[in-house]
Protein backbone atom coordinates (compact mmCIF):
# COMPACT_ATOMS: atom_id res chain seq x y z
CA UNK A 1 0.00 0.00 0.00
CA UNK A 2 1.32 3.40 -0.97
CA UNK A 3 1.33 5.54 2.15
CA UNK A 4 -0.45 8.89 2.12
CA UNK A 5 1.58 11.78 3.52
CA UNK A 6 2.38 15.43 2.89
CA UNK A 7 5.47 14.25 1.04
CA UNK A 8 3.52 11.86 -1.24
CA UNK A 9 1.05 14.64 -1.99
CA UNK A 10 3.94 16.87 -3.02
CA UNK A 11 5.56 14.14 -5.10
CA UNK A 12 2.35 13.32 -6.95
CA UNK A 13 1.64 16.98 -7.56
CA UNK A 14 4.78 17.03 -9.74
CA UNK A 15 3.18 14.43 -12.04
CA UNK A 16 -0.25 16.11 -11.95
CA UNK A 17 -1.71 13.41 -9.67
CA UNK A 18 -1.84 10.96 -12.58
CA UNK A 19 -0.06 8.08 -10.85
CA UNK A 20 -1.78 7.48 -7.53
CA UNK A 21 -2.21 3.81 -6.76
CA UNK A 22 -5.80 2.54 -6.75
CA UNK A 23 -7.18 2.61 -3.22
CA UNK A 24 -8.04 -1.11 -3.40
CA UNK A 25 -7.98 -4.01 -5.86
CA UNK A 26 -10.93 -5.46 -7.72
CA UNK A 27 -10.02 -9.13 -7.20
CA UNK A 28 -11.44 -12.34 -8.62
CA UNK A 29 -13.07 -14.37 -5.83
CA UNK A 30 -11.46 -17.49 -4.40
CA UNK A 31 -13.68 -20.59 -4.13
CA UNK A 32 -13.23 -20.74 -0.35
CA UNK A 33 -12.63 -18.22 2.44
CA UNK A 34 -11.91 -18.75 6.12
CA UNK A 35 -14.36 -15.95 6.87
CA UNK A 36 -16.88 -14.24 4.62
CA UNK A 37 -18.34 -10.92 5.72
CA UNK A 38 -21.68 -10.06 4.11
CA UNK A 39 -22.18 -6.31 3.82
CA UNK A 40 -19.58 -3.73 2.83
CA UNK A 41 -20.65 -0.87 5.07
CA UNK A 42 -18.37 0.63 7.68
CA UNK A 43 -19.08 -2.14 10.19
CA UNK A 44 -18.39 -4.98 7.72
CA UNK A 45 -15.21 -3.37 6.43
CA UNK A 46 -13.96 -2.62 9.94
CA UNK A 47 -14.65 -6.24 10.91
CA UNK A 48 -12.58 -7.49 7.97
CA UNK A 49 -9.76 -5.09 8.79
CA UNK A 50 -9.47 -6.16 12.44
CA UNK A 51 -9.78 -9.86 11.48
CA UNK A 52 -6.78 -9.51 9.21
CA UNK A 53 -4.81 -7.21 11.45
CA UNK A 54 -5.40 -8.51 14.97
CA UNK A 55 -6.46 -12.11 14.44
CA UNK A 56 -4.16 -12.96 11.58
CA UNK A 57 -6.89 -14.59 9.48
CA UNK A 58 -5.61 -15.03 5.94
CA UNK A 59 -8.52 -15.67 3.59
CA UNK A 60 -11.20 -13.05 4.16
CA UNK A 61 -13.77 -11.62 1.75
CA UNK A 62 -16.30 -8.83 2.09
CA UNK A 63 -19.35 -9.28 -0.17
CA UNK A 64 -21.27 -6.10 -0.95
CA UNK A 65 -24.35 -6.14 -3.14
CA UNK A 66 -23.97 -2.50 -4.18
CA UNK A 67 -20.86 -0.37 -3.70
CA UNK A 68 -18.77 -0.02 -0.54
CA UNK A 69 -20.32 2.36 1.97
CA UNK A 70 -23.48 2.88 -0.10
CA UNK A 71 -25.84 1.81 2.68
CA UNK A 72 -26.42 3.60 5.97
CA UNK A 73 -22.71 4.31 6.26
CA UNK A 74 -22.92 6.77 3.38
CA UNK A 75 -26.34 8.11 4.38
CA UNK A 76 -25.98 8.96 8.04
CA UNK A 77 -25.51 12.27 9.81
CA UNK A 78 -22.19 11.16 11.35
CA UNK A 79 -22.74 12.02 15.01
CA UNK A 80 -20.24 10.31 17.29
CA UNK A 81 -20.63 10.20 21.09
CA UNK A 82 -20.47 7.62 23.87
CA UNK A 83 -22.70 9.07 26.61
CA UNK A 84 -25.03 6.09 26.93
CA UNK A 85 -26.72 5.38 30.24
CA UNK A 86 -26.16 1.69 30.97
CA UNK A 87 -22.72 0.25 31.70
CA UNK A 88 -22.87 -2.34 28.91
CA UNK A 89 -23.73 0.18 26.21
CA UNK A 90 -21.51 2.94 27.58
CA UNK A 91 -18.49 0.62 27.56
CA UNK A 92 -19.13 -0.55 24.02
CA UNK A 93 -19.56 2.96 22.59
CA UNK A 94 -16.64 4.31 24.63
CA UNK A 95 -14.47 1.51 23.24
CA UNK A 96 -15.44 2.80 19.78
CA UNK A 97 -14.82 6.45 20.71
CA UNK A 98 -11.30 5.58 21.90
CA UNK A 99 -10.61 3.90 18.56
CA UNK A 100 -11.97 6.96 16.72
CA UNK A 101 -9.43 9.15 18.46
CA UNK A 102 -6.52 7.45 16.67
CA UNK A 103 -8.32 6.11 13.60
CA UNK A 104 -6.85 8.42 10.96
CA UNK A 105 -3.34 7.43 12.04
CA UNK A 106 -4.24 3.76 12.33
CA UNK A 107 -5.64 3.63 8.78
CA UNK A 108 -3.30 6.20 7.23
CA UNK A 109 -6.49 7.81 5.96
CA UNK A 110 -8.01 11.10 7.06
CA UNK A 111 -11.45 10.22 8.41
CA UNK A 112 -11.89 13.86 9.45
CA UNK A 113 -12.87 12.95 12.99
CA UNK A 114 -13.68 16.24 14.63
CA UNK A 115 -14.27 16.30 18.39
CA UNK A 116 -16.41 19.41 18.35
CA UNK A 117 -18.64 18.25 21.20
CA UNK A 118 -22.25 17.09 21.40
CA UNK A 119 -25.08 18.82 23.25
CA UNK A 120 -28.23 16.87 24.20
CA UNK A 121 -30.86 19.43 25.15
CA UNK A 122 -33.45 19.09 27.89
CA UNK A 123 -36.79 20.91 27.71
CA UNK A 124 -38.73 19.51 30.65
CA UNK A 125 -38.08 18.82 34.30
CA UNK A 126 -37.99 15.10 33.57
CA UNK A 127 -35.50 15.65 30.71
CA UNK A 128 -33.22 17.45 33.17
CA UNK A 129 -33.50 14.67 35.76
CA UNK A 130 -32.63 12.11 33.09
CA UNK A 131 -29.70 14.23 31.94
CA UNK A 132 -28.35 14.56 35.49
CA UNK A 133 -28.63 10.83 35.95
CA UNK A 134 -27.04 9.99 32.62
CA UNK A 135 -24.11 12.38 33.04
CA UNK A 136 -23.47 10.99 36.52
CA UNK A 137 -23.55 7.44 35.16
CA UNK A 138 -21.20 8.46 32.34
CA UNK A 139 -18.68 9.93 34.77
CA UNK A 140 -18.73 6.78 36.87
CA UNK A 141 -17.86 4.95 33.66
CA UNK A 142 -14.97 7.32 32.97
CA UNK A 143 -16.81 9.05 30.14
CA UNK A 144 -16.61 12.83 29.90
CA UNK A 145 -19.81 14.76 30.49
CA UNK A 146 -21.18 17.93 32.01
CA UNK A 147 -24.61 19.29 32.80
CA UNK A 148 -25.08 22.80 31.43
CA UNK A 149 -27.68 25.47 32.16
CA UNK A 150 -29.05 27.71 29.36
CA UNK A 151 -26.30 30.29 29.93
CA UNK A 152 -23.67 27.57 29.55
CA UNK A 153 -25.31 26.38 26.33
CA UNK A 154 -25.41 29.90 24.99
CA UNK A 155 -21.64 30.20 25.50
CA UNK A 156 -21.06 27.21 23.25
CA UNK A 157 -23.81 27.96 20.71
CA UNK A 158 -24.53 31.70 20.70
CA UNK A 159 -27.17 31.29 17.96
CA UNK A 160 -29.48 29.04 19.89
CA UNK A 161 -32.80 30.37 21.08
CA UNK A 162 -32.85 30.02 24.88
CA UNK A 163 -35.77 32.40 25.31
CA UNK A 164 -38.36 31.37 27.90
CA UNK A 165 -41.09 32.33 25.47
CA UNK A 166 -40.96 29.26 23.25
CA UNK A 167 -43.26 26.28 23.21
CA UNK A 168 -40.56 24.06 24.74
CA UNK A 169 -38.00 26.34 26.41
CA UNK A 170 -34.47 24.95 26.77
CA UNK A 171 -33.78 24.18 30.44
CA UNK A 172 -30.31 22.72 30.07
CA UNK A 173 -28.24 20.11 28.31
CA UNK A 174 -25.69 17.39 28.64
CA UNK A 175 -22.37 18.21 27.02
CA UNK A 176 -19.87 15.62 25.85
CA UNK A 177 -16.79 17.51 24.61
CA UNK A 178 -15.12 14.40 23.16
CA UNK A 179 -18.12 13.70 20.90
CA UNK A 180 -18.34 15.11 17.41
CA UNK A 181 -18.58 14.10 13.78
CA UNK A 182 -16.49 12.26 11.17
CA UNK A 183 -16.51 11.99 7.40
CA UNK A 184 -18.76 8.97 6.74
CA UNK A 185 -17.44 7.96 3.29
CA UNK A 186 -13.86 8.30 4.43
CA UNK A 187 -14.50 5.79 7.20
CA UNK A 188 -15.68 3.18 4.71
CA UNK A 189 -12.89 3.99 2.25
CA UNK A 190 -10.20 4.09 4.91
CA UNK A 191 -11.14 0.67 6.30
CA UNK A 192 -11.54 -0.72 2.77
CA UNK A 193 -8.11 0.45 1.69
CA UNK A 194 -6.43 -0.77 4.86
CA UNK A 195 -8.21 -4.15 4.73
CA UNK A 196 -7.32 -4.60 1.06
CA UNK A 197 -3.69 -3.89 1.87
CA UNK A 198 -3.80 -6.79 4.35
CA UNK A 199 -5.11 -9.10 1.62
CA UNK A 200 -8.87 -8.93 2.20
CA UNK A 201 -10.85 -9.47 -1.04
CA UNK A 202 -13.49 -6.75 -1.44
CA UNK A 203 -16.14 -8.07 -3.83
CA UNK A 204 -18.54 -5.34 -4.87
CA UNK A 205 -21.72 -5.76 -6.88
CA UNK A 206 -22.04 -9.19 -5.31
CA UNK A 207 -25.29 -9.75 -3.42
CA UNK A 208 -25.85 -12.74 -1.15
CA UNK A 209 -29.05 -14.57 -2.11
CA UNK A 210 -28.90 -17.57 0.21
CA UNK A 211 -26.74 -19.77 2.40
CA UNK A 212 -25.21 -23.16 1.80
CA UNK A 213 -26.41 -25.08 4.83
CA UNK A 214 -25.50 -28.60 5.95
CA UNK A 215 -27.70 -29.52 8.87
CA UNK A 216 -27.33 -26.73 11.42
CA UNK A 217 -24.10 -25.47 9.88
CA UNK A 218 -23.33 -22.85 7.31
CA UNK A 219 -20.83 -23.97 4.68
CA UNK A 220 -20.90 -21.02 2.33
CA UNK A 221 -22.98 -18.33 0.69
CA UNK A 222 -24.86 -18.19 -2.60
CA UNK A 223 -24.32 -15.02 -4.56
CA UNK A 224 -25.94 -13.40 -7.57
CA UNK A 225 -22.56 -12.79 -9.19
CA UNK A 226 -20.10 -15.59 -8.43
CA UNK A 227 -22.34 -18.57 -7.65
CA UNK A 228 -21.56 -20.32 -4.36
CA UNK A 229 -18.51 -19.38 -2.29
CA UNK A 230 -17.39 -21.69 0.51
CA UNK A 231 -16.69 -20.32 3.98
CA UNK A 232 -15.55 -21.54 7.37
CA UNK A 233 -17.53 -18.83 9.09
CA UNK A 234 -19.92 -16.17 7.84
CA UNK A 235 -20.58 -12.80 9.51
CA UNK A 236 -23.64 -10.82 8.38
CA UNK A 237 -23.35 -7.06 8.80
CA UNK A 238 -26.16 -5.85 6.56
CA UNK A 239 -28.01 -3.36 8.80
CA UNK A 240 -31.57 -2.88 7.44
CA UNK A 241 -31.46 -6.14 5.51
CA UNK A 242 -30.57 -8.34 8.48
CA UNK A 243 -34.03 -9.93 8.68
CA UNK A 244 -33.84 -10.80 4.98
CA UNK A 245 -30.53 -12.63 5.50
CA UNK A 246 -31.84 -14.34 8.64
CA UNK A 247 -34.82 -15.45 6.53
CA UNK A 248 -32.43 -17.15 4.07
CA UNK A 249 -31.05 -19.13 7.00
CA UNK A 250 -34.52 -19.96 8.31
CA UNK A 251 -34.93 -17.86 11.47
CA UNK A 252 -36.36 -14.52 12.60
CA UNK A 253 -34.64 -11.67 14.45
CA UNK A 254 -35.99 -9.18 16.99
CA UNK A 255 -35.35 -6.48 14.41
CA UNK A 256 -37.62 -4.18 12.44
CA UNK A 257 -36.40 -2.13 9.49
CA UNK A 258 -37.58 1.46 9.28
CA UNK A 259 -36.85 4.36 6.97
CA UNK A 260 -34.69 7.03 8.57
CA UNK A 261 -34.33 10.32 6.75
CA UNK A 262 -31.87 13.18 6.75
CA UNK A 263 -31.44 16.38 4.80
CA UNK A 264 -28.81 19.02 4.13
CA UNK A 265 -29.05 22.68 3.29
CA UNK A 266 -27.02 24.48 0.69
CA UNK A 267 -23.56 25.37 1.98
CA UNK A 268 -23.43 28.51 4.12
CA UNK A 269 -20.68 30.31 6.04
CA UNK A 270 -19.62 28.66 9.32
CA UNK A 271 -22.33 29.26 11.94
CA UNK A 272 -22.41 26.15 14.10
CA UNK A 273 -19.24 24.46 15.34
CA UNK A 274 -20.76 21.75 17.50
CA UNK A 275 -23.56 19.17 17.39
CA UNK A 276 -26.97 20.04 18.86
CA UNK A 277 -29.53 17.29 19.51
CA UNK A 278 -32.94 17.40 21.12
CA UNK A 279 -35.00 14.35 21.85
CA UNK A 280 -37.95 16.33 23.15
CA UNK A 281 -38.64 18.56 20.15
CA UNK A 282 -37.00 15.84 18.06
CA UNK A 283 -34.39 17.15 15.74
CA UNK A 284 -30.64 17.43 15.58
CA UNK A 285 -28.24 19.54 13.60
CA UNK A 286 -24.59 20.11 12.85
CA UNK A 287 -22.66 21.88 10.10
CA UNK A 288 -20.36 19.97 7.78
CA UNK A 289 -16.92 21.20 6.81
CA UNK A 290 -18.39 21.96 3.39
CA UNK A 291 -20.83 24.35 5.07
CA UNK A 292 -24.14 22.53 4.72
CA UNK A 293 -26.39 22.19 7.73
CA UNK A 294 -26.90 18.46 8.34
CA UNK A 295 -30.30 17.74 9.85
CA UNK A 296 -32.09 14.62 10.98
CA UNK A 297 -34.67 13.28 13.38
CA UNK A 298 -36.55 10.11 14.17
CA UNK A 299 -37.58 7.12 12.09
CA UNK A 300 -40.73 6.85 10.03
CA UNK A 301 -43.12 4.81 12.15
CA UNK A 302 -43.82 2.09 9.57
CA UNK A 303 -41.36 -0.55 8.44
CA UNK A 304 -39.85 -0.10 5.01
CA UNK A 305 -37.02 -1.20 2.75
CA UNK A 306 -37.40 1.58 0.18
CA UNK A 307 -34.62 3.91 1.45
CA UNK A 308 -37.06 6.78 1.57
CA UNK A 309 -39.66 8.04 4.04
CA UNK A 310 -42.63 10.38 4.25
CA UNK A 311 -42.71 14.17 4.11
CA UNK A 312 -44.53 14.73 7.44
CA UNK A 313 -41.43 13.46 9.27
CA UNK A 314 -39.28 16.06 7.50
CA UNK A 315 -41.79 18.83 8.28
CA UNK A 316 -41.82 17.85 11.93
CA UNK A 317 -38.02 17.84 12.06
CA UNK A 318 -37.66 21.24 10.46
CA UNK A 319 -40.28 22.71 12.77
CA UNK A 320 -38.17 21.51 15.70
CA UNK A 321 -34.94 22.88 14.24
CA UNK A 322 -36.53 26.28 13.60
CA UNK A 323 -37.71 26.49 17.17
CA UNK A 324 -34.09 26.05 18.26
CA UNK A 325 -32.60 28.22 15.49
CA UNK A 326 -35.19 30.69 14.14
CA UNK A 327 -32.56 32.30 11.90
CA UNK A 328 -32.34 29.16 9.75
CA UNK A 329 -35.85 29.73 8.40
CA UNK A 330 -34.41 31.30 5.22
CA UNK A 331 -31.84 28.59 4.50
CA UNK A 332 -32.80 26.58 1.39
CA UNK A 333 -32.60 22.82 1.74
CA UNK A 334 -30.59 21.07 -0.93
CA UNK A 335 -31.01 17.32 -0.67
CA UNK A 336 -33.01 14.81 1.34
CA UNK A 337 -32.67 11.02 1.50
CA UNK A 338 -33.35 7.96 3.57
CA UNK A 339 -31.66 4.80 4.78
CA UNK A 340 -33.03 1.54 6.21
CA UNK A 341 -32.27 1.24 9.90
CA UNK A 342 -32.47 -2.02 11.82
CA UNK A 343 -34.18 -1.19 15.11
CA UNK A 344 -34.38 -3.52 18.11
CA UNK A 345 -36.77 -3.53 21.10
CA UNK A 346 -34.09 -2.11 23.45
CA UNK A 347 -32.32 0.19 20.96
CA UNK A 348 -29.13 -1.83 21.37
CA UNK A 349 -27.27 -3.94 18.82
CA UNK A 350 -27.25 -7.71 18.41
CA UNK A 351 -23.71 -9.06 18.19
CA UNK A 352 -22.71 -12.71 18.14
CA UNK A 353 -23.91 -16.19 17.35
CA UNK A 354 -27.09 -17.06 15.47
CA UNK A 355 -29.12 -20.27 15.72
CA UNK A 356 -27.05 -21.63 12.78
CA UNK A 357 -23.51 -22.84 13.55
CA UNK A 358 -20.68 -20.68 12.20
CA UNK A 359 -23.17 -18.01 11.11
CA UNK A 360 -22.81 -14.77 13.07
CA UNK A 361 -24.79 -11.55 13.03
CA UNK A 362 -23.83 -8.00 13.88
CA UNK A 363 -26.94 -5.88 13.47
CA UNK A 364 -29.60 -3.88 15.26
CA UNK A 365 -27.50 -0.70 15.45
CA UNK A 366 -30.59 1.09 14.24
CA UNK A 367 -30.42 4.85 14.13
CA UNK A 368 -27.10 5.14 15.93
CA UNK A 369 -24.44 2.76 14.69
CA UNK A 370 -22.11 5.05 12.80
CA UNK A 371 -20.49 6.20 16.03
CA UNK A 372 -19.80 2.57 16.87
CA UNK A 373 -18.16 1.62 13.55
CA UNK A 374 -14.59 1.00 14.81
CA UNK A 375 -15.72 -0.64 18.06
CA UNK A 376 -18.34 -2.76 16.35
CA UNK A 377 -15.83 -4.07 13.82
CA UNK A 378 -13.29 -4.66 16.54
CA UNK A 379 -15.52 -6.76 18.81
CA UNK A 380 -17.21 -8.57 15.93
CA UNK A 381 -13.81 -9.63 14.59
CA UNK A 382 -13.22 -11.12 18.05
CA UNK A 383 -16.53 -13.02 17.86
CA UNK A 384 -15.69 -14.48 14.45
CA UNK A 385 -12.06 -15.35 15.09
CA UNK A 386 -12.11 -16.75 18.61
CA UNK A 387 -14.03 -19.46 20.43
CA UNK A 388 -15.16 -17.07 23.17
CA UNK A 389 -17.41 -14.06 22.55
CA UNK A 390 -15.47 -10.94 23.71
CA UNK A 391 -16.62 -9.49 27.03
CA UNK A 392 -17.79 -6.22 25.47
CA UNK A 393 -20.08 -8.10 23.06
CA UNK A 394 -21.46 -10.64 25.51
CA UNK A 395 -24.39 -8.59 26.87
CA UNK A 396 -25.58 -8.06 23.29
CA UNK A 397 -26.30 -11.66 22.27
CA UNK A 398 -29.64 -12.85 20.90
CA UNK A 399 -30.22 -14.75 24.15
CA UNK A 400 -31.12 -11.51 25.96
CA UNK A 401 -34.50 -11.54 24.21
CA UNK A 402 -35.27 -14.87 25.91
CA UNK A 403 -33.70 -14.18 29.28
CA UNK A 404 -35.18 -10.69 29.49
CA UNK A 405 -31.80 -9.04 30.18
CA UNK A 406 -32.43 -6.17 27.76
CA UNK A 407 -30.14 -3.14 27.82
CA UNK A 408 -32.81 -0.50 27.57
CA UNK A 409 -31.21 2.51 25.97
CA UNK A 410 -34.40 3.98 24.53
CA UNK A 411 -34.93 7.28 26.26
CA UNK A 412 -31.81 6.83 28.27
CA UNK A 413 -29.28 7.90 25.69
CA UNK A 414 -30.83 11.31 25.25
CA UNK A 415 -31.77 10.84 21.64
CA UNK A 416 -31.36 8.21 18.99
CA UNK A 417 -28.39 8.49 16.56
Amino acid at each position, binding site marked *: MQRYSAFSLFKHALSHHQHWQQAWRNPEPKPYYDIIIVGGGGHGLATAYYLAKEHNIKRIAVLEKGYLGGGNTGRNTTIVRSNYLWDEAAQLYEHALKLWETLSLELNYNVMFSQRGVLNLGHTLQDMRDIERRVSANRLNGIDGEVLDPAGIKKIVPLINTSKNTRYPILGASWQPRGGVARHDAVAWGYARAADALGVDLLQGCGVTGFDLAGDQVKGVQTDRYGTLGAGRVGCVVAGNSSVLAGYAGF*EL*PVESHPLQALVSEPIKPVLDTVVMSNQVHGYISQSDKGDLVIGAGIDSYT*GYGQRGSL*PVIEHTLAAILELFPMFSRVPMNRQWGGIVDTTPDACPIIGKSPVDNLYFNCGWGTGGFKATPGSGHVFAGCLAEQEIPALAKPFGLDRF*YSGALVDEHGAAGVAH
Partner: protein
Amino acid sequence: MLRIYCPICEEARDEPEYHYAGQAHIVRPSDPDQCSDQEWGEYLYFRSNLRGLHREMWYHAAGCRKFFNVLRDTQSHEVKASYRLGATPPDQEEVRL
Protein backbone atom coordinates in the same frame (compact mmCIF):
# COMPACT_ATOMS: atom_id res chain seq x y z
CA MET B 1 -46.53 10.05 2.16
CA LEU B 2 -48.83 7.06 2.47
CA ARG B 3 -52.52 7.31 1.72
CA ILE B 4 -54.36 4.66 3.62
CA TYR B 5 -57.91 3.46 3.18
CA CYS B 6 -59.72 3.01 6.50
CA PRO B 7 -62.19 0.14 6.20
CA ILE B 8 -64.27 1.53 9.06
CA CYS B 9 -64.54 5.14 7.83
CA GLU B 10 -64.56 3.78 4.28
CA GLU B 11 -62.33 6.61 3.10
CA ALA B 12 -58.71 7.04 2.05
CA ARG B 13 -56.89 9.52 4.31
CA ASP B 14 -53.35 10.86 4.68
CA GLU B 15 -50.78 9.09 6.80
CA PRO B 16 -50.58 11.68 9.66
CA GLU B 17 -54.15 10.71 10.67
CA TYR B 18 -52.89 7.24 11.55
CA HIS B 19 -50.43 5.52 13.87
CA TYR B 20 -48.53 2.45 12.76
CA ALA B 21 -49.13 -0.44 15.15
CA GLY B 22 -46.81 -3.21 13.99
CA GLN B 23 -47.08 -6.66 12.45
CA ALA B 24 -50.64 -8.05 12.33
CA HIS B 25 -52.00 -11.49 13.21
CA ILE B 26 -49.64 -12.15 16.11
CA VAL B 27 -51.46 -14.44 18.48
CA ARG B 28 -50.83 -14.04 22.20
CA PRO B 29 -50.08 -17.42 23.79
CA SER B 30 -53.27 -18.56 25.48
CA ASP B 31 -51.46 -19.52 28.69
CA PRO B 32 -48.34 -17.38 29.19
CA ASP B 33 -47.45 -19.23 32.40
CA GLN B 34 -46.95 -22.39 30.37
CA CYS B 35 -44.66 -20.74 27.83
CA SER B 36 -40.96 -21.49 27.75
CA ASP B 37 -38.63 -18.47 27.77
CA GLN B 38 -38.05 -19.19 24.11
CA GLU B 39 -41.76 -19.07 23.22
CA TRP B 40 -42.47 -15.98 25.29
CA GLY B 41 -39.43 -14.13 23.92
CA GLU B 42 -40.48 -14.96 20.38
CA TYR B 43 -43.98 -13.69 21.00
CA LEU B 44 -42.74 -10.44 22.54
CA TYR B 45 -39.82 -9.51 20.34
CA PHE B 46 -39.29 -11.54 17.18
CA ARG B 47 -40.92 -10.23 13.98
CA SER B 48 -41.10 -11.32 10.37
CA ASN B 49 -39.93 -7.87 9.17
CA LEU B 50 -40.64 -8.89 5.60
CA ARG B 51 -39.12 -7.25 2.59
CA GLY B 52 -42.21 -7.42 0.36
CA LEU B 53 -45.88 -7.87 1.21
CA HIS B 54 -46.45 -7.26 4.90
CA ARG B 55 -49.64 -7.53 6.95
CA GLU B 56 -49.68 -4.85 9.60
CA MET B 57 -51.98 -2.97 11.98
CA TRP B 58 -52.76 0.73 11.80
CA TYR B 59 -54.72 2.89 14.24
CA HIS B 60 -56.93 5.65 12.89
CA ALA B 61 -56.02 8.13 15.63
CA ALA B 62 -57.54 11.26 14.06
CA GLY B 63 -60.57 9.46 12.67
CA CYS B 64 -62.65 6.60 13.99
CA ARG B 65 -59.95 5.66 16.58
CA LYS B 66 -60.16 2.03 15.60
CA PHE B 67 -57.45 -0.48 14.71
CA PHE B 68 -57.54 -2.25 11.35
CA ASN B 69 -55.19 -4.26 9.13
CA VAL B 70 -53.32 -3.25 6.02
CA LEU B 71 -51.47 -5.24 3.40
CA ARG B 72 -48.53 -3.15 2.25
CA ASP B 73 -45.45 -3.64 0.12
CA THR B 74 -42.54 -2.65 2.37
CA GLN B 75 -40.27 -2.13 -0.62
CA SER B 76 -42.46 0.24 -2.66
CA HIS B 77 -44.52 1.34 0.40
CA GLU B 78 -47.63 0.79 -1.74
CA VAL B 79 -50.77 0.04 0.28
CA LYS B 80 -52.41 -2.94 -1.43
CA ALA B 81 -55.46 -3.56 0.73
CA SER B 82 -57.13 -2.65 4.04
CA TYR B 83 -59.39 -4.98 6.03
CA ARG B 84 -61.07 -5.04 9.41
CA LEU B 85 -59.64 -6.85 12.43
CA GLY B 86 -60.97 -10.37 12.49
CA ALA B 87 -61.66 -10.39 8.76
CA THR B 88 -59.91 -12.96 6.61
CA PRO B 89 -56.83 -11.33 5.13
CA PRO B 90 -56.93 -10.99 1.36
CA ASP B 91 -54.94 -13.72 -0.31
CA GLN B 92 -51.52 -12.29 -1.11
CA GLU B 93 -51.57 -14.09 -4.46
CA GLU B 94 -54.80 -12.36 -5.41
CA VAL B 95 -53.42 -8.91 -4.80
CA ARG B 96 -52.03 -7.79 -8.11
CA LEU B 97 -48.41 -6.77 -7.92
